[in-house]
């Protein structure tokens, strides 16, 4: 593990050493959005798909940004924030130099209008789940109020937010789904035909299913940025097609799957342009305690011992993952380096099963999608391993888009999925709090009073170090209770052309880049 980490760090550092040149102005960045064949719409508020977040980083800005280097949210549209002693009231001093693409200055009213829009109950905007933590936001959602009581404009550049619980708003308000829109302009009926925002690039055109084109916003508030004149983002859901386009130098970046990862690493040229990051996703097999054998901790632990996760990662996932040693991943601030993975030990697994009353094993149904990294191929690899300890698997294949609904309803004995486990460790661990419903993210209906207590204490404390320590303890208990088979943490891999610089190792999602920091040197085919 340490070797892997060292290698990743070295690769990342190497990438940044190469990139530590004087940025060049001009040229076109040809980016790809790899998760679908199109973008949903020109309205960043309506979609919480990563695909749409990608273009949102060019066109819009939210109250916070994600600082990839330090792996934490940072203020973006505000210069400073003061937090009350109880942690509920946050007073933001907003930037006075952030201009929308029509040249108008952003003021507190724009943020208030945007957040109020997000709470429009008739529209079901995905970011409502974040804004709902503001005092009075639910009343707006239910149509019982027109204004969010927890948002108060002190002056044009001072905004007070009152939350219903102690929270870190940086984790809530950094995605494109919370992009700040110009209050008055966004209400025009044709606004979304040519939307404007606060981002580093201005919207030029959207050819649905083909590309989104942007040009530099000269009055962007970060001096000298963005560097590129133009940005073209092409949605390309097919990995094989992206591979050809990348090798043909038609695109500047490509997200790689396991097969391509191996091929690119083996290629002397392509291997020079690979950026790897341990993303905040934990691949796991969730076990439903409603299915009798899984109600017993020893059975769940036995499954963790019975599967040779290391072998599967190496052979099937092609080392494009890190072995999981808990729920919180390597890039989490609460990751515990001292934790060790469940060892592959079929004998121990057999012993645990015997102690639990299943000496001859049992049969269970495993719901899985076709995903190559955390779906059917992985399940198929585990079948003979589980069979050796007497556990038979009946596979229930489902479509990727159906999995979320099935799991949220508890309609499974076991499922395999890749779930977010960050960036906020407390939020991630709250998925194991007994108060969190299964339909939210406590998919295995996990319940342990000790974990609840630790998480409640972590939520109540203002001391960051103490909070992380409490979360770490909760993570360790959950790991020992094994509500899931802890498989791996995703290693996201981005291939980039040698002329592209300024990429950020974003652990929340590597495809999400802040385009103002990217630049192309003179060797790019689109340098002019």
């Amino acid at each position: 593990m340490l070797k892997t980490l060292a290698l990743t760090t070295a690769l990342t550092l190497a990438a940044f050493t190469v990139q530590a040149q004087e940025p060049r102005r001009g040229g076109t960045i040809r980016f790809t959005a790899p998760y679908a064949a199109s973008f949903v719409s020109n309205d960043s508020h309506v979609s919480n798909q990563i695909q749409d977040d990608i273009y949102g980083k060019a066109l819009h800005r939210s109250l916070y940004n994600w600082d990839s280097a330090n792996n934490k949210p940072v203020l973006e549209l505000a210069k400073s924030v003061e937090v009350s002693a109880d942690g509920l009231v946050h007073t933001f001093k907003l930037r006075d130099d952030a201009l929308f693409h029509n040249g108008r200055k952003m003021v507190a009213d724009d943020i208030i209008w945007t957040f109020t829009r997000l709470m429009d109950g008739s529209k079901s905007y995905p970011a409502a789940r974040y804004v709902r933590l503001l005092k009075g936001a639910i009343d707006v959602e239910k149509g019982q109020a027109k204004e969010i009581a927890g948002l108060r404009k002190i002056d044009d550049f001072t905004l007070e937010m009152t939350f219903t619980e102690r929270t870190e708003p940086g984790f809530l308000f950094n995605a494109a789904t919370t992009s700040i829109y110009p209050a008055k302009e966004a209400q025009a009926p044709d606004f979304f035909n040519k939307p404007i925002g606060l981002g580093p690039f201005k919207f030029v055109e959207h050819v649905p299913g083909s590309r989104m084109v942007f040009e530099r916003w000269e009055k962007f508030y970060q001096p000298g940025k963005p560097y590129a004149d133009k940005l073209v983002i092409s949605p390309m859901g097919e990995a094989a097609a992206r591979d050809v386009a990348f090798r043909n130098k038609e695109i500047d970046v490509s997200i790689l799957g396991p097969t391509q990862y191996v091929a690119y690493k083996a290629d002397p040229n392509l291997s020079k342009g690979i950026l790897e990051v341990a993303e905040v996703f934990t691949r796991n097999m969730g076990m439903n305690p409603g299915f009798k054998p899984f109600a017993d901790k020893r059975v769940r632990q036995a499954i963790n011992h019975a599967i040779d996760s290391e072998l599967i990662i190496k052979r099937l996932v092609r080392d494009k993952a890190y072995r999981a040693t808990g729920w919180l991943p390597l890039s989490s601030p609460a990751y515990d380096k001292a934790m060790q993975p469940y060892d592959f030990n079929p004998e121990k697994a057999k012993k645990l099963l015997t102690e639990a009353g299943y000496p001859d094993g049992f049969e269970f149904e495993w719901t899985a999608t076709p995903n190559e990294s955390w779906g059917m191929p992985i399940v198929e690899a585990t079948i003979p391993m589980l069979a050796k300890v007497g556990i038979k698997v009946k596979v229930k294949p489902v479509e990727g888009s159906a999995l979320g609904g099935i799991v949220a309803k508890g309609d499974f004995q076991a499922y395999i999925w890749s779930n977010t486990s960050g960036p906020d460790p407390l939020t991630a661990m709250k998925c194991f709090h007994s108060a969190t419903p299964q339909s939210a993210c406590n998919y295995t209906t996990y319940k342990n009073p000790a974990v609840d207590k630790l998480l409640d204490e972590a939520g109540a404390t203002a001391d960051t170090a103490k909070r992380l320590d409490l979360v770490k303890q909760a993570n360790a208990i959950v790991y020992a209770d094994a509500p899931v088979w802890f498989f791996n943490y995703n290693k996201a891999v981005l291939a980039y052309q040698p002329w592209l610089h300024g990429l950020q190792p974003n652990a929340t999602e590597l495809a999400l880049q802040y385009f103002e920091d990217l630049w192309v040197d003179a060797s790019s085919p689109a340098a002019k």
Partner: protein
Amino acid sequence: MLPYVFKRLLQAVPILLAVAALVFVMFSVIPGDFASTQSSDGRSAIDAEAVARMNTQFGLDEPVHVRFGKYAGKLLTLDLGTSFRTRQPVINSLSERIWPSLQLSMAAMLFAIAFGVPLGFLAALKPGGWVDMQSMIVAVSGLSLPQFWLGLMLMYTFALLLGWFPSFGYGDGNPRYLVLPAVALGVAPLALLARTTRAAVLEVMNADFVRTARAKGNSEVRVMRWHVARNAAVIVLTTLGLQFGSIMGGAVVIEKLFAWPGIGSLLVDSVSLRDIPVVQACILLLVLFFLIVNIVVDVLCALIDPRIKYS
């Protein structure tokens, strides 16, 4: 002829309604709904309140028969509904995609006709000869190669190795961008057209009226043009009409592969996100295209062959 066309168009209405009902029922019974797909990437934990709210907003919490009644009522007034994903009228999404799809389908069809018909014709002139053998190889390969694989091979060869064409994208209607997806889409119909043309021409060439035409002293060119080609064209045109459906279906794969902004790629994304109004509209549109093309084919057949009368 016009009353016939009108009658055929009227017949299309129940077909479209039946297709709409079928698609509606299918998407009502398969697992997954729009709200739950919003968390399918595993990034966002499912917000139960949001799921409930979305289901209410889109009417998904109503019984199936009520939803279908409302949908059918809207459809009769040509209202295709509102997209779950974009919260915009479905017609907006469709209108942006129709022209690129038509461009691609027509280019694929032209490619198939331009190469398939002459190939079949030449093969029929000397059955068992070299051209016939080659056309058989082309036909078998064209029909058996998966379009996805063929598209990738075309990309690899003509974009990456030779650098003749771009490997993906729309390129503002620049025909260079159209070539590879159109060829990938057109190869299967080309193969079938070649075989159908060969069979049709062979059949007609042995007909009595062709022998009579030759006996009357008509030149071989005239016999081929006025008697063989015209009579074979009816069969070829009918195949062509049916193949249009396969081209529209194949476009679903090819458009996604080549990042071509047509109905096919919209359909793929809409299915995976369970944006049912858009899925229904896309399928209805594809069916409508198919019906219209086949009406046009029937009319053309009647124009070519005076023996065909529609009443």
